[in-house]
């Protein structure tokens, strides 16, 4: 079972549908009480997904209000696979400059910054991925595979080795897939990235099954 955290901001349907298309069972977890009930019922949660659209500060606020921050920290600590998607990936990092300065979950080292104006913002559309570091999440992803991005801010990773795949946009190398241990993330939308995206969702499910 894959638990999809939703404190009520984004559109979860496409993420849920995406995981269902690759054969995963999913459950939507809106808050800490729902998480505790799930665990208490003995449901085996093999992996956790943190999706997200909207603004960084609002999303952190919602996560906090829903009591999900300690749960995310616990998931990261106990080694259970955690996958942040789009804004959800950015939330895994230390801080963001979106509309001010906000602290993130700090599970990965880096800062979320805005694109400069020498490129069109948002970075919207299909961009190819360069695999920087082979990883089970990137199994069967080949040179020239395109994925769908839509974001105005990107991660400046503090440690390059947490970047697994990158996308070149203008002069910037945008971290596309990140990971350190069990904490993983994709800046693009795998659930909207055609067959290539489905391969990545499938790979995450396989990682969860191995856990």
């Amino acid at each position, binding site marked *: 079972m894959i638990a999809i955290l939703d404190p009520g901001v984004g*559109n979860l*349907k*496409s993420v849920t*549908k*995406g995981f269902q*298309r690759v054969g995963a069972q999913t459950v939507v977890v809106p808050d800490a009480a729902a998480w505790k009930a799930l665990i208490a019922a003995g449901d085996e949660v093999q992996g956790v997904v943190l999706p997200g*659209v*909207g*603004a960084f500060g609002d999303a952190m606020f919602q996560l906090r209000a829903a009591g999900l921050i300690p749960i995310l920290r616990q998931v990261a600590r106990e080694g259970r696979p955690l996958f942040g998607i789009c*804004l959800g990936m950015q939330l895994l990092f230390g801080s963001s400059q979106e509309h001010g300065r906000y602290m993130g979950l700090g599970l990965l080292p880096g800062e979320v910054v805005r694109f400069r*104006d020498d490129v*069109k*913002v*948002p*970075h*919207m*559309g*299909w*961009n*190819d991925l360069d695999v920087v570091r082979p990883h089970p999440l990137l199994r069967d992803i080949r040179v*020239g595979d*395109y994925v*769908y*991005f*839509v*974001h*105005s801010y990107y991660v400046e990773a503090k440690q390059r080795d947490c970047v697994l795949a990158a996308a*070149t*946009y203008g002069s910037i190398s945008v971290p596309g897939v990140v990971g350190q241990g069990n904490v993983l993330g994709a800046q693009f*939308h795998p*659930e*909207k*990235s*055609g*067959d290539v*995206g*489905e391969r990545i969702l499938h790979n995450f499910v396989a990682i969860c099954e191995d856990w």
Partner: protein
Amino acid sequence: MLIKRIIPCFDVLDGRVVKHVGFLHDRRDAGDPVELAKIYSDAGADELVLLDISASEQGRLATRRVVEEVAAQTNIPLTVGGGVSSVDDVRSLLLAGADKVSMNTSAVRNPSLVKEAAHRFGEQCVVVAIDANLNQTMGEYEVMIQGGKVGTGMDVIEWARRVEKLGAGEILLTSFHQDGTRDGYDIQLTRSVATAVNVPVIASGGAGRKEHFYTVLTEGRADAALAASVFHFAETSIRDVKAHVRQRGVPVRWIYQ
């Protein structure tokens, strides 16, 4: 590298895809939106745009049911427009499965709607559709509303810059005078908007041959090219268009063997 997108558009009327010659007349049936969405998605469409063309004039929101079914059938982004007049409408379509919501008449009447929607749901899901018509008296492109029936007297470039500031993440630019002609996109219009703003611009209106896509994506500086009838009536295919522009050096998402 970010590639140029090729986007089929569905004009939906009473649950069916229709294509009309010019904005106002001669509608022809092109099929079931859910079926077409699946076909185009498998054929290599980079995105889908679904516009409920009667919603606005009937004072209602685009049909949620169609949006839900189309979203369930596809694994590529979906933009939906038609009758969006409040933040709640935007939310409703996003919850139905739209990734982006397009506003046109309501953005002109109430520009703060663009700002509010961008603030609540993020700029990335707010598309402002601009219908442009060459106004001989003004000597400029004029913003049209209500499906092209009503002129606003507003200059297209100024309006495009303004909606960008308000938080639109993308502009869907239709040349009203070219729409349905199949004579090609309005290159001058597209280029002047695409170079005036720093958000992606989707060119629409006038596609008839694969060469037209090449021209609007290069000379016209469009980030994406949208077309309806040329695809619906199989005059060209998404693969043919992509093969053509790719061979002439424009990067596209190539999913074919």
